[in-house]
């Protein structure tokens, strides 16, 4: 692996050089938090930020996305292909985007997602310390880069180490002056940063994440779901902020003449009461407990079965936004304890 070295003093100039021809997104401060919004004229992203409110997913899968412009005889799909760059993506979110690529790319591919995604270059940033108390990326194996990436930066103090993962990434460095090949001392700095970093992150799951699918498979009838369901507000905050949630609703907007308009998709959530309700009023997950369970099973089991990738990347956003403190770490650990206790009991019975 060869790295290049970009002095921090050059970063803003680099960002400026990307403006022509790209829409730029990155973590921007707003009301004391950060969001991946469009970087305006004269603005620069924050490279060192705690986790963003919404994940960078919102750029490639906007909360409200036009699918069609319709009018009698003139209905056209709205495919957005303008080149964009997302700067400053944490590694957990990189893993989440890798899952999104699979969900929207496989089976019947979703051209709307793909058009936007293919026109987007991802620039990651290595996390050197936990972004919030809720992060459990180390347990979920997302503390380092996924296989595929475009560009990735690691903070070395005065400089960034730049790792190039794709031609798309390479292309962004095209006109950049002041970039040099990493030397031995740089590799030394990088190694140090990485090994110091590792120790700063706690393992927060009491078991190995690879056991998660089987743990959840045996926990389907756990009484924990009832308890969580009683507390859950069914507010959908957890799923709205999740970088791996992909569910959506489709709505039409029409003009007052009732002929022309737009069809849009908007984020939806399995935690909401009507999500699985069909005509006639039958709701396939009428209880909050069933909905909370569905969410955690989707995160820890179903997505893994379908794509071989975990449906939770340990970003901790859901934990941070849940007013009744329903968190993946607590939930998974509680289920694990239940299993250990159950096993201990049956061992006792057996002996």
């Amino acid at each position: 692996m060869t790295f290049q070295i970009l002095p921090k003093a050059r970063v803003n100039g680099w960002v400026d050089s990307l403006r022509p021809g790209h829409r730029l997104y990155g973590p921007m401060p707003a009301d004391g938090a950060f969001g991946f919004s469009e970087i305006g004229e004269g603005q620069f992203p924050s490279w060192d930020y705690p986790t963003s409110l919404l994940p960078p997913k919102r750029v490639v899968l906007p909360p409200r996305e036009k699918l069609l412009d319709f009018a009698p005889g003139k209905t056209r799909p709205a495919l957005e292909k303008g080149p964009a760059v997302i700067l400053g993506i944490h590694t957990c979110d990189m893993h989440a985007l890798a899952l999104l690529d699979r969900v929207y790319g496989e089976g019947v591919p979703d051209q709307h997602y793909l058009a936007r995604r293919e026109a987007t270059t991802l620039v990651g940033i290595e996390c050197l310390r936990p972004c919030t108390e809720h992060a459990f990326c180390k347990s979920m194996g997302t503390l380092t880069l996924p296989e595929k990436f475009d560009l990735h930066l690691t903070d070395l103090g005065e400089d960034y180490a730049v790792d190039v993962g794709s031609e798309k990434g390479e292309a962004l460095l095209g006109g950049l002056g002041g970039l040099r090949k990493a030397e031995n001392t740089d590799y030394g700095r990088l190694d140090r940063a990485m090994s110091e970093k590792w120790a700063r992150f706690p393992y927060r799951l009491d078991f190995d994440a690879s056991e998660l699918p089987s743990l959840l498979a045996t926990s389907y009838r756990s009484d924990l779901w009832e308890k969580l369901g009683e507390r859950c507000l069914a507010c959908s905050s957890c799923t709205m902020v999740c970088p791996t949630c992909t569910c959506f609703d489709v709505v039409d907007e029409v003009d007052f003449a009732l002929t022309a308009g737009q069809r849009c998709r908007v984020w939806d959530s399995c935690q909401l009461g009507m999500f699985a309700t069909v005509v006639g009023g039958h709701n396939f997950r009428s209880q909050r407990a069933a909905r909370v369970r569905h969410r955690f099973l989707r995160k820890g089991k179903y997505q893994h079965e379908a794509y071989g990738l975990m449906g939770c990347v340990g970003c901790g956003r859901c934990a941070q936004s849940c007013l009744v403190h329903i968190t993946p770490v607590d939930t998974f650990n509680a289920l694990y304890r239940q299993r250990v206790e159950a096993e201990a009991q049956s061992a006792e019975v057996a002996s």
Partner: protein
Amino acid sequence: MTAPNGAKPKVAFFDFASCEGCQLTVVDALQTHLGLLDAVEIVQFREAMSERADDYQIAFIEGSCTRAVDEERLKAIRGRAQLVIALGACAHMGGVNAGRISQSLEAVRGYVYGAKAGTIDTGPVRPIGSVIPVDGYIPGCPIDREEFARSVTALLQGRMPSLPDYPVCAECRLHENVCVFQNGKACLGPVTRAGCGAICPTYHAGCEGCRGLAPGANLPSLRSVLAEHGLDARAADDSLRLFLSAELAEHEA
């Protein structure tokens, strides 16, 4: 909407006990949606016009019913209109007017009108839906102008306006608001029906519940969240009482 031979549907606006802020928001909606005026024919809108016709298909009603005369007038409107739509919190669930249901009528009258209280004609505060059948609701205090425009579109398409069935928190997330609980304020968003674009939290205030309870609202859990953030039972009641008095009475019954 069925107007005779494809003509524009005729709509009329009426107000009862209210601040008329919802009608004002209708005027706002006309500012941003000039096409509205082409799509419908307004035949009665006392706040903005003198002309008055009693031939209409859609009646938008603002305000609560508080008097016997209101009841008669409501029934007359119901008799003429094909569709009756409750406009705003006062019509939908009593709104702030319902805040007085915890006090006796005599006490309320006496406090405001003193010795002359006896001459004041007023009764209990009622949402219009408990006086006449209502076909659709546009909640909020005031109503949201976009929702009003969407509702008119729905009516023109011959269907009832549909309301979000999820709580305000969902919209807060989509707007990337920092939850006001994190800044030490209380919020009723987790139990309140969305559709306002989480406007109060967006402006850094807690949701006051003006759109009514979301279906399946988990009130006991909300109360424990409020308690965790320093609101004792009385303070929690105070905040729920601003708009939700009538709904809570119903919910708890």
